[in-house]
């Protein structure tokens, strides 16, 4: 903690000074403390020094901090990723981040809902499939999500890949 060294000179004899005189001197002391101690960082003040989503996205400020909650807003951060079994049906269980749900539409065809959505449809999806020779590609893209197609590397027909994995980059 910063410390202040303060001396007060009473204009009156302190043993007989009036309360008004003391109040004035304490008021002067407070003014002195306020003018002497600079603004400094404390635990409760951390949120005030945390970067806003806009500052994280712009990635240019050197006067604010990243927090666990806002780190993902940085331009270099992926916004979502997941790994799921394409052989599942209906609403698919997955491991990941930034993904609300994954559903199977048909054989080798899936929809991904992002949470939160992207700011525009100009974002990046990279995906890779498991299995012996499968590969994948993305289909239609909206701000809310996108579709995935999984294919056999042998005849390029759609098939349920055992493990489909993707990442998403862009702005939210």
């Amino acid at each position, binding site marked *: *903690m*910063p410390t*202040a060294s303060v001396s007060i000179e009473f204009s009156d004899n*302190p*043993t*007989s*000074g*009036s*309360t008004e005189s*003391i*109040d004035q001197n*304490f*008021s002067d*002391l*407070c003014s002195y*403390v*306020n003018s002497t*101690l*600079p*603004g*400094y*960082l*404390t*635990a*409760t003040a*951390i*949120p005030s020094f*945390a970067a806003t989503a806009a500052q994280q996205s712009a990635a240019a400020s050197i006067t604010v*901090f990243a*927090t*666990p*909650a*806002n*780190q*993902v807003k940085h331009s270099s*951060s*992926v*916004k979502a*990723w*997941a*790994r799921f079994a394409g052989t599942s049906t209906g609403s698919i269980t997955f*491991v990941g*981040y*930034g993904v609300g749900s994954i559903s199977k539409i048909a054989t080798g065809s899936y929809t991904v809902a992002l949470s939160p959505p992207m700011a525009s449809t100009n974002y990046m999806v*990279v*995906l*890779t*499939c*498991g299995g*012996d*020779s*499968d*590969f994948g590609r993305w289909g239609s893209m909206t701000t809310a999500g996108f579709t995935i197609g999984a294919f056999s*590397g*042998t*005849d*390029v027909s759609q098939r349920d890949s055992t493990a489909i*994995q*993707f*990442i998403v980059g862009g702005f939210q």
Partner: protein
Amino acid sequence: MNTASVPNTFASSTGTVSLSLLDTNFTSYATFLNSTFLPEITATTIPSYTASTAQMQTATASTVFVSSAGQKNHPAATKAYASFIGTATGTVSFTGYGVTRIVRAGTGTYSVVLSTGFASTEYAIVGLSSQANSLLSAPNIGRQTTDYFEIKVITLFTATALDPNYVHFSVFGI
């Protein structure tokens, strides 16, 4: 800036003030100051205010800082990535992060050893391969353990193994 205001404990319209009363009031004032001004965060105390691994993985705290050492623990941070030449043999030279070793196990097949293992095998790998000729190739993930996985590159339409010019991959997980 932190600000102090005079606690209203000195109001008295009459009477004289003794030295003992002054001492008491100064003590009260010191207590007031100590309770008002929180400890300052300095360079040496910053570690006490940085996010723990658990806080980074949860990714919701806004009252702690992200440190350089802890940034990688965020779920949106890549845990490993690399770029290497697919035609190399044996132990493959690579540029990357979070990867200990890459070995070409056979045509189009590469084993990757991660520097830090994941908590489970439930992590995601995405990769791309590139060719100088007109062949279309695609990387494929084979066996996958907590700290090891295989990349298999095939030629599309024939599904035969292929050594591509370059392989790039990135790994995400917790």
